[in-house]
């Protein structure tokens, strides 16, 4: 569904931010990009979304519909949450929108404006909007930031259900090792300057709790700095 090879991504200053980053996502994959702040996760996602084309390498994306959650929720402030969702999809019936908002824990938000919601609620509204297009590929930048553990769990479960039932793929940038090992089927750690893929770990959907715990321990052992990363941006 998605194959990217970023040989090099340079900043306008000439500094190389990313070097030799390869990433692929097939239907059913949940690929977590872990890395400290400034490691290049958001830049990688922008390249995957086709928003940044100034890199050496190549990108092949065969997704018919893409949903995205940006670091800033990017909701239109002059439209209600319901209208923000309707904006990106022509076919969403009122019941679909109500169900989506209920799934992300915002059952009462359809008629509210984004400024009436907290940052965490806006982020969840952005998740609902991304799901509304019934995407083959979801690209998510810190979707669990500003969410309490219960709400983060609810969102993770809703996203996992979409992957399972629709055969979609997810590429998600995040900080949280615990969440990544519980949620992802593959973990890529971006580290170094320029950033490169420092670790690539497979976590099959049927991996046991012991397997996940072992990978979590390995990640903490090798990339302990990630455990210190702030939970919310």
């Amino acid at each position, binding site marked *: 569904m998605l194959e990217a090879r970023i040989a090099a991504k340079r900043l306008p200053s000439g500094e190389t931010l990313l070097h030799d980053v390869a990433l692929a996502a097939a239907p059913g994959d949940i690929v977590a990009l872990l890395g400290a702040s400034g490691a290049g996760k958001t830049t990688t996602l922008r390249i995957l*979304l086709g928003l940044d084309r100034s890199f050496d390498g190549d990108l092949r994306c065969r997704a018919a519909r893409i949903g*995205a959650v940006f670091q800033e929720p990017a909701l239109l*402030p002059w439209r209600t949450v319901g209208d923000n969702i309707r904006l990106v999809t022509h076919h969403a019936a009122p019941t679909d929108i109500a169900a989506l908002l209920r799934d992300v824990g915002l059952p009462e938000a359809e008629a509210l404006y984004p400024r009436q919601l907290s940052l965490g609620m806006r982020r969840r509204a952005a998740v609902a909007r991304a799901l509304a297009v019934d995407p083959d590929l979801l690209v998510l930048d810190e979707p669990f930031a500003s969410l309490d553990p219960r709400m983060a769990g609810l969102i993770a479960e809703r996203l996992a259900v979409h992957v399972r039932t629709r055969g979609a793929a997810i590429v998600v940038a995040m900080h949280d090792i615990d969440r990544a090992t519980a949620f992802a089927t593959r973990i890529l750690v971006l580290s170094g300057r320029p950033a490169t893929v420092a670790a690539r770990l497979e976590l099959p959907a049927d991996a046991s709790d012991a397997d996940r715990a072992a990978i979590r321990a390995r990640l903490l052992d090798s990339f302990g700095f990630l455990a210190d990363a702030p939970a919310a941006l």
Partner: protein
Amino acid sequence: MSQAERRATDRGALFRLTGLIGFLAIWWLAAQAVASPNLLPSPLRVAIYTWHATESGDLPRQMAFTLARVLVAFVIAMAAGSAAGYAMGRSARIDAIADPWLVIALNLPLLLVVILAYIWIGLNDLAAVLAVVAAKAPSVVVTLREGSRALDPGLDDMAAVFRLPYTRRLREVVLPQLAPYLAAAGRSGLSITWKIVLVVELLGRPNGIGFVLNSAFQNFDVTAILAYGLAFAVIMLVVEAGVLQPLERRARAWRGDA
């Protein structure tokens, strides 16, 4: 509207009325002091003249000519200026190419533009309207260029990723962000446009308020100058307060509490 807000509005209206009465009183006193109706007629004399000019149909007729020119020039200047300002705000390359043109256009003396338009195009309404557009559009370009530079790149990204069609993107994402800039350009635009139209009419049209002012000037008829000039200014103020200010408030409405 709460009672306190209504009281504040009433107080504002009272102050404005006081200001207007004060202006008329000073005018009347000055007319008494000058004691020459040909040099400075009293407010009452101007009001009576205005009434007769309205009754005879000349004032409405001349005003219609001028209003039509103002409207056409205003719409073209806003449309062309907005399109150019948007393009310059969105593209550094277009901005670099067009900026020297804009600087020249902003600094061209109005008289030069009007005279050249009449010489090159002829003494007709096309020349008159184009001269007004050329004089007004550059300031619209500047305002809309600033507005386009302030567009939220995050919303652009969202629109691109969700593949919003271009017209939808323009209508739903771009225009609401530009609305305050369009409203500001429109408000200042109208007040400048009608003043330019009077000059254009004075220099080369056989009708309109500017033409009447020129004829009255030739005859040293201050009463006619004040009657036609003030009547037109009042109409423009009504349009500004009754149409453009509400539009601007609407453009900014979403920023308040919903």
